[in-house]
């Protein structure tokens, strides 16, 4: 797979001296965003709006983590959804069968995800381009088939039913809708902040270099395989977090969470929002969920509408929305400076 077209437009400016300043700015933005989201229940009692934000958190974490692979490292994974499903199932099963406190189950799920991602990643990241895409897809379907056939443990095609117990911890009661909402927002903001730190760190710039020219990166003494494996596992962790938010939200886990279409949706979200900016996938998530919700309300043939919108983005704009907007602004600024 060639380098991303959007990626070529971006020049690799070295981290400027004020890296610490940038980090403080990111933290500040995150705090403001969290304050705005957390104060939302004070202004509106709309349950639908809060539900929408919770779904955005789950999908946003998942789609942004895919961007670490697709946008930053140039690894087009078709099976990233397996970690979303894995997170939802592991978390749900731990809560149902063992009844551990939620934070313990959370950490345990991340550990399980990391181990499985390391094994799968060790096999996959050696492969090139289209083969990487298909082997990740195959692993995803393998996990999906396992969930379906291991019915005594996972509930098979019925999914994990009977609800996931949500015992209170530290005074947080996730069975309460507002508490769940705030916890989801916090996870989203923390996850995004952590991913932003990864993307802006020297390791993040190493990933960009691997994306642009893996051979040159390896001449410079970088262990490409190890760097790719590391980011594969890291991305899996955030996808798993998204899956856990989803499992908490629907109080269950379903085989669809591990089906390949969820990976397809994540790729679509990334393209919709744009992969050359950090927040592109987040914009894409909001766009897709809005689009899905409105279109299904008006017509039963939402495939046609969604398809036409995708065509508009793919053939008309030829890039994601946020990429389009940022490029448009930089053109305008350049024109304004008389260049």
């Amino acid at each position, binding site marked *: 797979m*060639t380098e991303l077209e959007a990626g070529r437009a971006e020049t690799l400016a070295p981290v400027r001296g004020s890296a610490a300043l940038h980090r403080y700015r990111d933290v500040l933005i995150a705090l403001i965003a969290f304050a705005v989201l957390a104060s939302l229940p004070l202004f509106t009692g709309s349950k639908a709006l809060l539900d929408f934000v919770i779904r955005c958190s789950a999908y946003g974490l998942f789609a942004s983590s895919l961007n670490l692979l*697709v946008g930053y490292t140039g690894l087009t994974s078709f099976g990233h959804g397996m970690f979303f499903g894995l997170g939802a199932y592991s978390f749900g099963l731990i809560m149902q069968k063992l009844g551990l406190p939620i934070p313990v189950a959370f950490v345990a799920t991340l550990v399980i995800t990391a181990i499985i991602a390391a094994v799968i990643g060790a096999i996959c990241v050696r492969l090139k381009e289209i083969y990487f895409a298909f082997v990740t897809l195959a692993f995803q379907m393998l996990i999906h088939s396992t969930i379906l056939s291991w019915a005594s443990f996972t509930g098979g095609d019925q999914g994990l039913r009977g609800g996931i117990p949500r015992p209170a911890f530290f005074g947080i009661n996730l069975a309460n809708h507002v508490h769940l909402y705030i916890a989801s927002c916090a996870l989203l903001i923390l996850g995004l902040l952590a991913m932003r730190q990864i993307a802006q760190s020297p390791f993040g710039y190493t990933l960009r270099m691997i994306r642009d020219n893996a051979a040159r990166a390896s001449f410079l003494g970088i262990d490409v395989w190890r760097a790719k494996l590391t980011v594969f596992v890291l991305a899996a962790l955030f996808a798993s977090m998204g899956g856990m938010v989803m499992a908490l939200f629907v109080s269950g886990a379903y085989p669809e969470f591990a089906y390949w279409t969820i990976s397809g949706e994540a790729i679509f979200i990334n393209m919709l929002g744009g992969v050359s900016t950090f927040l592109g996938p987040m914009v894409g998530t909001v766009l897709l969920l809005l689009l899905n919700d409105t279109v299904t309300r008006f017509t039963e043939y939402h495939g*046609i509408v969604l398809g036409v919108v*995708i*065509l508009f983005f793919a053939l008309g704009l030829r890039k994601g929305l946020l990429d389009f907007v940022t490029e448009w602004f930089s053109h305008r600024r350049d024109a304004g400076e008389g260049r």
Partner: protein
Amino acid sequence: MTLSAAFVWLLAPRRARCNESAPVDLDALTGCLSSSACLVTQTTSGLIIGMLLFLVAVGLTLIFGVLKVVNFSHGAFYMFGAYFAMTAYHLTGSFALAMLAGAAGTAILGLIFERVFMSRVYGADVLMQLLVCYAFVLIFDDVVRIIWGPEFKSMGMPAAFQVMPLFIAGGVVPPYYLLLIGVALVAAIVLGIGLSRSRIGKVIRAAAHNPGMVSALGINTGLIYGGVFALGGMLAGLAGALAAPVRSLTPGMGFSVLIESFIVTVIGGMGSIVGALVGALLLGLIRSFGSLGFPLFTEGLMYLFMVIVLVSKPTGLFGKEAA
């Protein structure tokens, strides 16, 4: 058992038949392997799955080999082929016309699709190409839903093939299966010889190798691209038309076929016709025998097989090293 009931029993998905649904049933598998009747029945059913898969996958691999595009909407052509054939059969009552309608209709559709939409994203990123195809998967499924309705449809077995099934070594082989395997084999041979011997075949292979040079020699590469896409679409449509009498038709039916033919091309090696044939037959046999031994994990077996092949030989069984 009446004849039509026998057909229903034969053609019902394997999973429905073994609904005792033990996850692993090795007794059934070894029992079948030691009985020649069961062996013949399972092998023919594996062969027809494989042959249908081959027709779809060879189009996919051809399009990839020449256009360097992974046609994610290939399953839609299979679906349209089946629906065109059903409509033509119900209108005219002729099986031959139904096959023709399935193949020709999808060829025209492929040509239009390539010239109007796909040709715009050749230079673009692979993700962009996938996205255009994904959009058409959604659109085509809904178009079928609007024209033919969302419910299951069936074409019905043509009267000419409603004769007693053949019994080979005790195994039941419906005559239609033989026709299906024969047509697919002829397609494979014609395609193989056509590509290696005929002038057009040579031009196509040259265009796959170096389109700029071919274009500089005064050959219209746009026409070749459109033609190859139409050919690929036609093969998938033919597979759909052939499958129409033995499968139920539903919007979205192309999808599982698409995924399976992806596995076939990846196992066989992208761009290799022999690879597509071998991969498709292997997968068909895995499906038919796997459904006995591992009724619930049949799909998992296919993916497992793909992982094993790719890890040991990343370019596929017949793929070239510098893919």
